[in-house]
């Protein structure tokens, strides 16, 4: 028993008292938990205090855009010194907060659509960035040193008690709400509609303080729709090479695909070329990807056992609901996603991550950042890395591990981390460079000395280009790795520096493989191998269950 009367200097329940004061200030501006849209700016002024850590839900696809737009109507004299934490800087409203000087520090993951605006803010010294994170890294910090005082989030529906239904795009919401709600922070949700009965409860009312029915539905980006009509013959060639030289060779069972056309080509080759190679049932069974429309033919052909997703995809609602054996669905039958858990799966539980990049240097480091466009990371580095905490084996993991020839103090296995790129980007910009733009001193300085490298060369096991495959895992020295990269870098300045003898030696050892070395005839690479040639083809494969967004419909 503690003695009475001793001064206790430890923190006790000040935060709880502070939260009560904030909600008290809201007073009659809310009826219970419910705020009318007109009162939102006033309510925001009363629940947020200058100096707060504020989390604004801006995900890869879903945006709390109404709340963000209302926040952007406030000024520096209303709110200042805000420490903004958010996954994705996506909306013009997000940029306005910086322009108005309301932000003291920002910690985020990704700024795709606002990449140019962010680069401009950096140049104008109006972007006080703490760090650029990967998704799970930032969520983890929500539980440590970046716990939000207030979180402005987005949900599909609320009931009269304030329970929330998140529909297909759960994305980051649980990862934001839990640390906020369980630390006496305030959770304010915008919802598309308030209903009497929710299809299912994703966030209990208990963790929600305020709700507004937004006058317009939340912004939702169709980010993962790739029109098969835009896939080129070269991409088909690369897909064939990857299928034979990596998927088949390592018997890849569980995987993540990026969102590019290269991997879309692979998905569309499974039911045709893959079937012909007799790979069905042997590869590509467990997926951690969003419900990609280009996966429909493979799913319909029985290739796919399961798909867990970090987010939804516009138009795939009816299709996913009808395929609950493949997709994770709620009791109501509709699709469920969770970015934190999906990223965790992509970190620990997949044989292979395969994605593209804008720039790769001679050491295999890659980045999507340029001086004029700062995009950040998102989730790719969570998956495109070697998780040294992994302990469970798989066939692919052990096989790459053996090729990498681990030393006595190293993991026996490796995750396949594959970069699949054409040697040139559009506009004849070379993908392969001696030095990444991300290494620019001004960018490094803004990021406190850390160059924004997406995937580190040490983590990459393979690079696939239209020239062939470079097996970096099997390289025995940095010099060898650089030679292997030059060997597949084609006619870029990096590629032109290759030495014929070195390339031949690497080829002899199987470290560099040309298409014919993995049994692919380039003359056979043709779009006609794709299971669907256009979006309409996907709709037909789905038996009419896929509803593509209007910008993709031409019928």
């Amino acid at each position, binding site marked *: 028993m503690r003695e009475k009367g001793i001064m206790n200097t430890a923190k006790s329940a000040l935060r709880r008292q502070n939260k009560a004061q904030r909600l008290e200030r809201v007073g009659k501006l809310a009826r219970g938990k419910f705020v009318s849209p007109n009162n939102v700016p006033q309510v925001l002024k009363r629940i947020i205090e200058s100096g707060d850590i504020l989390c604004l839900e801006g995900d890869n696809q879903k945006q709390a855009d109404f709340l963000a737009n209302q926040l952007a109507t406030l000024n520096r004299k209303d709110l200042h010194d805000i420490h903004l934490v958010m996954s994705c800087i996506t909306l013009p409203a997000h940029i306005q907060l910086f322009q108005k000087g309301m932000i003291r520090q920002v910690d985020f993951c990704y700024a795709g659509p606002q990449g140019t605006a962010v680069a401009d803010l950096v140049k104008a010294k109006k972007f006080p960035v703490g760090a650029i994170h990967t998704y799970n890294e930032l969520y983890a910090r929500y539980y440590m040193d970046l716990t939000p005082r207030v979180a402005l989030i987005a949900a599909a529906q609320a009931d009269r008690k304030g329970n929330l239904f998140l529909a297909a795009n759960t994305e980051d919401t649980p990862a934001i709400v839990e640390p906020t709600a369980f630390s006496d922070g305030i959770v304010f949700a915008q919802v598309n509609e308030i209903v009497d009965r929710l299809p299912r409860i994703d966030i209990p009312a208990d963790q929600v303080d305020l709700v507004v029915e937004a006058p317009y539905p939340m912004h939702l980006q169709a980010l993962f729709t790739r029109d098969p009509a835009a896939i080129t013959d070269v991409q088909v060639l690369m897909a064939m090479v990857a299928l034979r030289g990596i998927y088949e060779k390592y018997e890849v069972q569980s995987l993540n695909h990026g969102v590019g056309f290269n991997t879309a080509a692979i998905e569309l080759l499974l039911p*045709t070329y893959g079937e012909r190679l007799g790979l069905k049932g042997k590869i590509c069974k467990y997926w951690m990807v969003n419900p990609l429309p280009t996966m429909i033919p493979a799913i319909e052909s029985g290739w796919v056992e399961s798909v867990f997703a970090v987010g939804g995809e516009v138009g795939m609602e009816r299709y996913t609901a009808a395929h609950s054996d493949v997709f994770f669905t709620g009791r109501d039958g509709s699709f469920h996603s969770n970015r934190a858990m999906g990223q965790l799966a992509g970190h620990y539980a997949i044989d292979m991550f395969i994605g593209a990049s804008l720039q790769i240097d001679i050491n295999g480091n890659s980045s999507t950042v340029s001086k004029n466009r700062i995009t950040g990371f998102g989730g790719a580095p969570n998956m495109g890395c070697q998780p040294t905490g992994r302990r469970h084996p798989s066939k692919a993991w052990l096989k790459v591990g053996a090729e990498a020839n681990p030393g006595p103090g190293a993991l026996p296995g490796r995750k396949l981390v594959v970069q699949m790129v054409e040697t040139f980007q559009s506009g004849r910009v070379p993908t392969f460079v001696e030095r990444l733009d991300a290494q620019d001193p001004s960018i490094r300085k803004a990021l406190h000395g850390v160059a924004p490298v997406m995937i580190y060369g040490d983590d990459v096991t393979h690079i696939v280009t239209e020239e062939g495959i470079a097996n970096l895992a099997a390289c025995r020295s940095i010099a060898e790795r650089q030679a292997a990269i030059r060997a597949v870098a084609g006619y870029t300045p990096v590629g032109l520096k290759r030495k014929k003898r070195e390339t031949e030696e690497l080829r002899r050892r199987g470290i560099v493989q040309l298409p014919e070395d993995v049994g692919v005839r380039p003359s056979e690479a043709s*779009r*006609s191998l794709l299971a669907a040639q256009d979006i309409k083809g996907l709709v037909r494969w789905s038996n009419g269950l896929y509803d593509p967004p209007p910008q*993709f419909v*031409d*019928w």
Partner: protein
Amino acid sequence: MTRGPLFHEQTARQRIAALVDPGSFGELLPPPERITSPYLAQLGIPVSFDDGVVIGRAKLGGKKIYIAAQVGQFVGGAVGEIHGAKLTGLFKAAARDRAPCVLLIESGGVRLHEGSAGEIAIAETMRAIFECRAKKVATIAVIGSDIGAYGGMGILSTCCDFRVMSEHGRLGISGPIVIEKWMGKKAYDSSNRALVWKTSGGKTKYLLGDADALVHDDAGAIRDAVAKLLGRSSAVTLKSVKARQKELEKRLKRFGATTDPNDVWKGMGVRDVAAASLASGPEFAAMTRRGK
């Protein structure tokens, strides 16, 4: 599920090779002759050794034909003086030899850089087409490319005896962007692809009787459709023009005030618009009772 290459993705020379009897194509004024546009050269714009159109003789099912294919990759298949002269000459040769003439269209119309010369060339080609028809030499336009048949080439295609279209093909006078520019985005949003294809795409044109066949996006299917039409032609007479005018007046009266192209489909007897939209060309042709 593997299919052959799609017609709309093929190049002009690939299209001809896939359409005619193997090895039968003999190109006239081929690229080595370097007959290029003098106007583009003056403007410092790159020229093409075929001026954007491939013409020649070939056989289709053993029957002699003349055939032309426009090259959409070169200034959008637009018609300049040389390009147009090649087409005129081809139809004149067809009339002279009484051999059917097939025109694979991929063009937005006249080349702006040589406007008057292009306009005149298209008018001369039309006259050569009428010469063919007067001699009952079949003239067939195939519209199934990315660019479609717009402007002067849209008009020219309607001078031919027949139009074979794929669902992918589009036929019109003003292109979508031009319409939007003059009528406003509210009246016609050119980025609304569904609207563009519902107003000028193969299905709608077939439904209204502007296209005579609606086939798969595939050279084999197009060849079969063309082969059936080779022996049929009719002269353009005052009577036939007046009859066509009456039809168009009737159509205008019926649909002139309609703002939703789906209503045109319904008016033409399409019961399930969603299913018809999703159907392939031949499926669509089978499920609709085509109006004339």
